[in-house]
């Protein structure tokens, strides 16, 4: 996936300023930055959910799996019904086979008939991610996937994402998660891409990634 000089302007405010980067196949990339940095806007543009003011993205929306921050699911439908509905809308060829595979991957086979509204936050997020994977996308985009989960649920979710083996771009507030689960981090602040590289490159010998991240932002005037 490649983003070329992607900008987004809301009135007089620049949400993104000419952001460019590439993501290699199989890579896990974390987008981190303070509140209002433009993380969600960037992911929405990459997903095709929001048009950029200028710039371009190399992949079409249907080639990208999109997992919004809040589970985008119908709470009155069961897990299987949600998966089946979105598989049909994605025009997946063998709907039943894909749904079964997703139920296996999410380990929610025994909860397939349960209404989504009755699931825990962690399980809901799993279904949310599974829907993003239905079309077998080249890249999976996750907007703060662990934001509303407790530590145990977070751990299980990241194990699940790691096991997918798909190219993943995710945004997070938790820089610790970025350090642990990302091959590369993109640091955004005020819509500007300040850094792209492995987490270790940002730390530069400092033992605390979070402290190094804050120092980095201070040094750049944020």
């Amino acid at each position, binding site marked *: 996936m490649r983003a070329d000089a992607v900008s987004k302007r809301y009135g007089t405010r620049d949400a993104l300023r000419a952001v460019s980067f590439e993501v290699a196949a199989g890579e896990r990339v974390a987008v981190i930055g303070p509140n209002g940095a433009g993380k969600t806007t960037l992911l929405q543009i990459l997903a*095709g*959910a929001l048009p950029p003011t200028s710039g371009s993205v190399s992949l079409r*929306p249907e080639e990208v799996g*999109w997992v919004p921050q809040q589970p985008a*699911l*119908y*709470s009155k439908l069961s897990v299987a019904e949600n998966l089946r509905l979105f598989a049909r*809308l*994605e025009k997946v060829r063998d709907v039943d086979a894909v749904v079964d595979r997703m139920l296996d991957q999410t380990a929610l086979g025994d909860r397939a008939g349960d209404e989504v509204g009755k699931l825990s936050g962690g399980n809901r997020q799993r279904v949310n991610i599974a829907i993003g994977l239905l079309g077998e996308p080249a890249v999976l985009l996750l907007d703060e996937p662990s934001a509303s989960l407790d530590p145990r649920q977070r751990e299980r979710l990241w194990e699940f994402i790691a096991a997918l083996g798909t190219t993943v771009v995710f945004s997070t507030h938790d820089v610790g998660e970025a350090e642990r689960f990302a091959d590369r981090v993109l640091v955004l602040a005020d819509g500007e891409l300040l850094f792209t590289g492995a987490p270790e490159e940002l730390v530069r010998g400092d033992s605390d990634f979070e402290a190094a991240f804050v120092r980095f932002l201070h040094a750049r005037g944020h």
Partner: protein
Amino acid sequence: MRWLLLKDLQILRRSPLLVALLVIYPIVIAVLFGFALSGGPDKPRVAFANLVPPGESEFDVGGRTLDAADYADRLFESIDPIRVDSREEAIEKVRSGEALGALVLPADATERLRSTLGLGGGGPPTVEVYYNAEDPVKRRFVEATIEARLAEANTALSEVVLREAAGYIDVIVRGGEIPLPLVGAVQILGLQRSQEIIDSITETLPRDSPDRAALEQVSRFAELAGENLDISQPILASIGSPVRVKQTVVNGSRTPLDAFAVAVAVTVSLMFVTLLLAAGLLALEREEQAFGRLVRGLVSRSALLTEKVVLSALCAVAVTLLMLVGLAAFVGLDWSRVPAWLAALAGGALGFAAMGVAIGGLAREVRVASLLALLLSLPIVFLALVPSGSIDPLLYDVINVVSGAFPFKPSLRALDAAINGGELLLPIVHLLALTAAFGAIARAALRRF
């Protein structure tokens, strides 16, 4: 769009409270309206206390004895009487709500009537009326009902008096028998017979008799009087109802009140069901966070709106058609007009559904959308039902324009025409134009959904 339709139907199926409300509400409305219309106020229950002592209810009109009880019976033809023995009992019936009102015939009623008819002076008899005035509407209804019934009784009484008077005139003209109190039946010769006698006597007199001229004058007088009194009979008859009414409808149709009430009831239900469903279903897409996922290449915004409009319109048409069928059991509706019912319901449902998705798109939350739909719909109904001529013409024009900008008034016109006959195409075209306009508003609202 097919899968979205099925999804929404599944969601509705799993919302039993909502579905129960959608089905039960129109059925309850239909049954209530049906009972209200079929058991309408044709014969209001009225308590009646006749305090005139037994045997004193008779009075004379020109020597003929009439009984006031006969006229009470006529009154009872148009009311459902609850006979009671005292004024207090009658008032209690009204107070308890058992009777709509009470009529009390005071003890001196026939005496006063005798006196009035005999030109003996004194005021006419007074009938006492008691009723509850819980609210201005009920008060007006009871007043109008009782006044109308008493007017009917007064007319019946005056008809008898006039008939008796006409009978007298007939006897004076043609001769006959007149019953008089104390004296009994008295033979009256009559003007025509008097003229005949005078003419026959005149014939026997010599041509130059001085009495002949005088008798011929009397004969001429009898002839003229007879002819003029004959003319006075229809004049007298016209006194009972001097003005006749000829009614011509200039605008609108001669829709019976109960059939119009059916059209109003069904249109109100159509409005609530469609508006709430369309607004709620669209707002739900955002509340469930699914909108962003759907419009990211899976479904276009226009297709999503179309799906909500079609689904809510279909549900509302089904529910209100059921309601119409239920009401048809109470009110005689013409079954051959079912295709017209469907066309009107479909037109109205599309208009309301488009307005509903516009509300849902602007409100973005189910609760806010539902509240907004209710807040908007109630004034629209009231404005649409304001009759022309009841307010200032300029204000009426403004109200007409405002009503025309929403689907209630054209839906009511379409349904009225579908049920009772009349121009159906124009209101349906109006509704389709509103569907397009509200659809455009909804589409614009989805840009910032």
